[in-house]
């Protein structure tokens, strides 16, 4: 993907990432956490990791990741491109891993029956499909079933693995 992305700061183990969104509302710290899903999952999924993404906010004295906030910083394509870059780098480093992710289902999404965040993730995947599909396998999950990832078809959860 040729899109511009923000500089990423990660932990040595490569499971947590921070970057700063710069936009009309100023500098907003964003966090990405990639967590291993335990071994009691079906074997064919292993090793599988879940990606969580949101704004890193100071709540009282403690930092926390908030995935429900809409920052409105006017830089959504760059933010999404940065998240996609992290996912691509993670999968390139963990060659057998499957990465699972699902956008936060907010009130607007529930009212519309569509996961707005997933739509954004899928838009990023779909618009770079020619390049990404050469290197990665994508699947979707909807109401308890796996399905082939297809452009324009909205999935509840997206799974991706290096080919």
């Amino acid at each position, binding site marked *: 993907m040729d899109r511009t992305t923000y500089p990423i700061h990660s932990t040595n183990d490569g499971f947590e990432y921070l970057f700063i969104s710069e936009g009309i509302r100023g500098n907003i710290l964003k966090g990405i956490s990639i967590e291993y899903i335990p071994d009691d999952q079906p074997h064919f999924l292993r090793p599988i990791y879940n990606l*969580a993404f949101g704004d890193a906010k100071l709540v009282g004295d403690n930092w926390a990741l908030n995935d*429900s906030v809409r920052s409105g910083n006017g830089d959504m394509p760059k933010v999404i491109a940065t998240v996609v870059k992290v996912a691509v780098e993670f999968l390139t480093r963990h060659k057998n891993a499957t990465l699972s992710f699902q956008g*936060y289902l907010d009130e607007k999404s529930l009212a519309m029956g569509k996961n707005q965040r997933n739509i954004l993730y899928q838009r990023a995947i779909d618009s770079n499909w020619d390049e990404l599909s050469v290197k990665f396998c994508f699947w979707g999950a909807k109401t308890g079933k796996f399905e082939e990832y297809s452009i324009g078809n909205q999935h509840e959860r997206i799974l991706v693995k290096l080919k």
Partner: protein
Amino acid sequence: MITSMKKHRAEEHEAFLEELLKDKEKIIAAIKNSPSVIRKQQEAIEQLSKLKPPFPWDKDRREEAV
């Protein structure tokens, strides 16, 4: 004027970044234990455990074996 604004913005960004990176490890540890991350993880475990075969990648593997 624009150059000066850009310079000011860059300095502001650098200061913000420097301040944050001092606490990078603390922030990351806190993020890892955030209620939203724990909730996301539980949702993923629950959803993935409900998925039933056949799985697309089983088909891919069979084709590879042939």
